[in-house]
């Protein structure tokens, strides 16, 4: 039998070498379960390598360029030597957040504040510290929702992660402040593997804003795995704000387990980034669970966006909806794959999905595909996808009112995006995002030297929330 020749990419070699050099050192500080997981994950990766376009899930996303980058696997602890506010300044007017900071994949905080617990028992802090301080609590959930097999990047993350954010909200606690995770890379050519875990106890509530930002134009690869557990009747609002430079790649996998009557609301806003992939897998495991996953992507130049949404109705009486909208300019390319799975016993399921795209140029491209796998017979499911140009009727209506072509175009694009933006419940955040989207559409949104929200200085929503005449 002929032996298959497998290409080993430079980044794979770097990873194997790095693992060999560091595994003994990691073992000293790791929880035994983490050590075991690392070894299982690296052997999976040795066998399967990075994903390629022959795999259905990766058919329209080519990452070969990334695999050939000589990236540094960054896992050093970043010394806390600057004031937090010097690096992470993020002010949204009228919006109280508790900021959690990560620099180059490492939790960034004074040593003694790496993990905190409030009077109500809310734990928030570094994942690495959480494993030391609350080993039983963390081990109960860690790696259980995501697994590590079936995907090369997930395996790499399981083998190489060094830090991330851990949040635990006990039963019955409603967290008032929004938690805001700001992740920044400020060194060139890094690959960063981070791991976040959010656990919400029964009847608890949390709003979490997850920002991925670039602070310069360096090449970088962020490979994040998020695990989220929502126990009975818990509610999570999760906002992902992605504004990275054109040379950055962001791979983002999110796994959610939902118990009975829990409610999940996700809004993924991709404003910029060379290559962004959001994979969200939501397991509806308890009756009465609800899931609303929406997203907006505004891509141009040669950027690539890939949204893969999997919603699994494993039990009866759950509701889910997926709404993704995108504006593709220049030679941008994109993928939307929305999966709905309804198990045989999952009767009385309501599952909806929609993906709408506006292509500004003839060179822009999007592949959109619904995948419905339904084994129950008493269900309501629907899906719809559109790809089109701006509406001529709408353009004429606006221009007939005296609004010039370019302004009319901006206004209609903004109106198109607004269906997703309007799902943001926090008003101050919504106004900031509206402002950012407008500036993005005008081509004025830049990668700032600080958190991107800080660049924003929106008008106050007193009488005129938006001055469209200036769009």
């Amino acid at each position, binding site marked *: 039998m002929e032996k298959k020749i497998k290409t080993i990419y430079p980044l794979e070699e770097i990873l194997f070498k790095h693992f060999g050099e560091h595994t003994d050192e990691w073992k000293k500080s790791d929880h035994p379960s983490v050590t075991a997981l690392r070894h299982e994950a690296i052997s999976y990766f040795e066998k399967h390598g990075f994903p390629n376009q022959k795999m259905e899930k990766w058919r329209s996303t080519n990452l070969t360029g990334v695999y050939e980058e000589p990236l540094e696997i960054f896992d050093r602890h970043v010394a806390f030597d600057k004031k937090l506010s010097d690096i992470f300044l993020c002010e949204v007017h009228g919006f109280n957040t508790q900021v959690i900071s990560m620099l180059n994949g490492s939790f960034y905080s004074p040593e003694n504040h790496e993990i905190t617990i409030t009077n109500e028992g809310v734990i928030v802090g570094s994942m690495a510290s959480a494993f030391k301080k609350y080993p039983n609590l963390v081990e109960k959930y860690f790696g259980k929702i995501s697994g590590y097999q079936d995907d090369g990047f997930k395996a790499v993350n399981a083998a190489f992660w060094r830090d991330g954010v851990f949040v635990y909200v006990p039963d019955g606690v409603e967290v008032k402040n929004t938690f805001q995770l700001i992740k920044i890379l400020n060194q060139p050519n890094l690959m960063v593997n981070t791991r976040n875990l959010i656990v919400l106890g029964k009847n608890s509530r949390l709003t979490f804003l997850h920002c991925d930002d670039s602070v310069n134009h360096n090449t970088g690869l962020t490979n994040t795995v998020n695990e989220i557990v929502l126990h009975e009747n818990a509610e999570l609002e999760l906002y992902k704000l992605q504004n990275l430079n054109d040379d950055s790649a962001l791979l983002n996998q999110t796994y959610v387990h939902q118990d009975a009557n829990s409610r999940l609301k996700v809004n993924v806003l991709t404003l910029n980034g060379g290559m962004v992939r959001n994979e969200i897998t939501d397991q509806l495991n308890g009756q009465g669970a609800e899931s609303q996953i929406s997203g907006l992507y505004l891509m141009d130049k040669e950027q690539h966006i890939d949204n893969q949404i999997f919603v699994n109705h494993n039990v009866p009486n759950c509701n889910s909806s997926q709404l993704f909208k995108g504006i593709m300019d220049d030679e941008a390319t994109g993928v939307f794959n929305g999966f709905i799975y309804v198990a045989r016993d999952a009767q009385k399921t309501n599952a909806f999905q929609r993906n709408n795209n506006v292509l500004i140029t003839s060179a822009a491209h999007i592949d959109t595909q619904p995948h419905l796998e339904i084994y129950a017979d008493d269900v309501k499911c629907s899906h719809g996808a559109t790809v089109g140009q701006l509406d001529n009727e709408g353009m*004429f209506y606006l221009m007939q*009112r*005296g609004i010039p072509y370019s302004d009319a175009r901006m*206004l209609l694009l903004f109106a198109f995006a607004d269906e997703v933006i309007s799902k943001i419940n926090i008003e101050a955040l919504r106004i900031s995002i509206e402002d950012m989207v407008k500036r993005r559409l005008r081509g004025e949104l830049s990668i700032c030297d600080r958190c991107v929200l800080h660049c924003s200085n929106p008008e106050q929503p007193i009488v005129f929330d938006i001055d469209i005449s200036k769009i």
Partner: protein
Amino acid sequence: MLLNIKNLHVSIAGKEIIRGLNFSVNKGEIHAIMGPNGTGKSTLAAAITGREGYEITKGEIIFKGQVINDWSPDKRANEGVFLSFQYPIEIPGVSMTNFMRTALNARREYKELPPIPAGEFLKKMEEKKKLVEIHSKLTNRSVNEGFSGGEKKKNEIFQMALLEPELAILDETDSGLDIDALKVVANGVNQLKSDENAFIVITHYQRLLDYIVPDFVHVMYNGRIVKSGGKGLALELEERGYDWIKDQFDD
């Protein structure tokens, strides 16, 4: 003369719809254009307002002494041409307030005037809202989103009141309106009418003309104006229908 149309020919996708139309409007006048379906009434409105896809193959549209055949729709609008749409477009995510402020400021910029101060704009809006009996909450909503048929048409007249055009074209404004909404719309038009502006009312039925009394009535058939007269012509059409026109002018 405010509007002068000479030997106008208009084609859509190579098919000639308007075939040699002559028509003129002076300030202070109300003209009604009537006629059976598919005779080119809405095409005429589209040609005057500069809609894409309506190709003028021959003839001239002269507005305030200038040939506007090649002008963009926004330039025509800013010079004072307004169209009340038969099917107004919904624009989710853009409030009526913002939309009208944008439109007013576009006009002011065109005339090299500074943007309208917020206070002045609000005052003006309140004033015009009363004219068409529009509720306050309607202007806080997105443009035409979830508006009833009547609300959409009232909203067109409200926009007209704010933009104060010199030439307003009402394209089938009466379609889908109940009698109360029709009265409100007509009342708005009558209050806006002055010696400085003119109206072209495109309608299928005489009903609207009971409330907006025209100075002239024209009948369009096969892409031309085939008959003109006073308001009595509308009543005659109501009584006799269009068949006698068709019999007389069929090619």
